[in-house]
């Protein structure tokens, strides 16, 4: 793993990379990632401006999760460069990453409050206890996600939507400038999804940059500044109407796709997976 020059002070805490003035929030250049022989991402390049909210769309296996992990600094790219505010993501603590839900032991003896407080770890220092300020931020984060009443519950008692909101609260408590979320809406019912989308509106007001991946093209088109269409390579990146074109969608999703006409445009709704076979185009 490419470690880079890690300053000793940064090992346990201490100053991290400053945000270079004038640099883009996020700059991805020629990023390629391989898992063994399998190519997950190929020469992906794009930049994101501050305060934008970007939806990453594409079929399963397109590399959406991988892309988010690379930006978060969880895995290094095999080729290419990721820069957050002009520096490697590894050197920043202002990046919040909310992975897909399943990665955690739900029987761990901690409460919702404990999990959200984890987000404050860098703020109060690794070897120092939380301060009053940290408690306030945690409570504020819990309020934003409407989980204050659940704060003292053990995490195994949460529903799917509540779990997701808890992790978002943790990301909020981090006071991150860049939020990366891996399919936060998948598997939630509509009210729960709406709650999360409302939080995104709050984040927009706070000028937090957001990248999230989703399967729901309609939502993506509706609520996000730009869409990033991904299938190992960057197929398209831009506003909804530029990206959600039948030819581009066909390239991304391969076979199975249904195009549904709306009042002023044709919306493409993707079926579950990237199969081979005929394209059904209903007009």
């Amino acid at each position, binding site marked *: 793993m490419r470690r880079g020059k890690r300053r000793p002070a*940064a*090992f*346990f805490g201490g100053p*991290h990379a400053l945000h270079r003035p004038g640099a883009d929030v996020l700059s991805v250049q020629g990023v390629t990632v391989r898992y063994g022989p399998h190519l997950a991402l190929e020469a992906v390049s794009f930049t994101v401006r501050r305060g934008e909210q970007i939806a990453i769309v594409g079929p399963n296996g397109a590399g959406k999760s991988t892309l988010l992990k690379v930006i*978060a*600094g*969880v895995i290094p790219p095999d080729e290419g460069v990721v820069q957050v505010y002009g520096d490697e993501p*590894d*050197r*920043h*603590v202002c*990046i*919040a*990453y909310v*992975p897909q839900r399943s*990665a*955690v*032991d739900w029987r*761990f*003896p*901690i*409460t919702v409050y*404990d*999990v959200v407080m*984890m987000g404050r*770890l*860098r703020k109060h220092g*690794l*070897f120092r206890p939380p301060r009053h300020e940290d408690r306030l931020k945690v409570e504020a984060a819990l309020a934003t996600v409407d989980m204050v009443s659940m704060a003292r519950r*053990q995490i*195994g*008692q949460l529903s799917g939507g509540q779990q997701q909101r808890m992790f978002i609260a*943790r990301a909020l408590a981090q006071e991150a400038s860049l939020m990366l979320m891996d399919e936060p809406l998948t598997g939630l019912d509509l009210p729960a999804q709406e709650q999360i989308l409302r939080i995104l509106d709050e984040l927009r007001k706070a000028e937090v940059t957001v990248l999230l991946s989703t399967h729901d093209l309609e939502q993506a088109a509706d609520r996000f500044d730009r869409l990033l269409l991904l299938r190992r390579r960057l197929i398209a990146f831009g506003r909804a109407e530029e990206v959600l074109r039948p030819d581009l969608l066909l390239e991304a999703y391969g076979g199975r796709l249904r195009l549904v006409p709306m009042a002023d445009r044709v919306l493409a709704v993707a079926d579950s997976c990237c199969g081979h076979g005929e394209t059904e185009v209903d007009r």
Partner: protein
Amino acid sequence: MSAWLLEPLRYAFMQRGFLAALMVGIVCAVVGTYVVLRGMAFFGDALAHSILPGIAVGYLVGGGDRGILFWWSLGTAIVAALGIGALSRRTQVKEDTAIGIIFAGAFALGIALISTVRSYSVDLAHFLFGDVLGVSPADLRLMALFGAAILFVVFFAYDAFLVVSFDPIFARTLRLPVGFFDSLLLMLIAVAIVVSLQTVGVALMVAMLITPAATAYLLTRRLPAMMGVAALLASLAGVIGLYLSYYFSVASGAAIVLVSTCFFGLAALFAPERGWLAARRRRPSAHT
């Protein structure tokens, strides 16, 4: 009644035994909380067995000097912990088989080395099953020193261990040195094992690490409470076990482990939410 409680305490060797059992119980319970939560029971058992060759060398080199034995055990334990830890990290999936082969081999090596001494069987029994009545004041001081050091590190790095254990990917996004803390935890387990060797021995060590913590897991909801309850249960088991050993002349290490296991059995049956009876009482239609 009180005479019956106080009688064993008249003897210095019993007092030292009680102190040793208490200290070891508390330290193993605290460290064992992480072992249970992170699913490291097999690792803990493997590590305890892998120490035997180091003990053997210390035994042969020092001729029974407990200080030399302690330092050899400690060195071996740390090396073994880091080695086994590295092994299970190198492959994505924990290599149960490789670890099993290595620890069984190390254990056999230890027995072979010890058996080269003609009158070895009693000493071997002590290494395998403990010798808590043989704890000397010097042993007690070493236990106290290293036990306190372990608790201090756990206290100090509590938040880091919590995040690294619960959500290592999140820890990585916070830029915590996850590998460092993982290794540190392995070393704490190693030192805890060495400190505790004299009470229960290599063969029963894993019980000291996991049983009180597993019992506490059934009874608590938060990590600090789990550690506290585990320490309490371990202390009780140590004390009761030693009384049993005194009055019924049974091996003390085994007595302590048996009491601990009984506590677990009781909790497994009667724990308010997670016990077996509680689960049965919940109506089938209700679902958490």
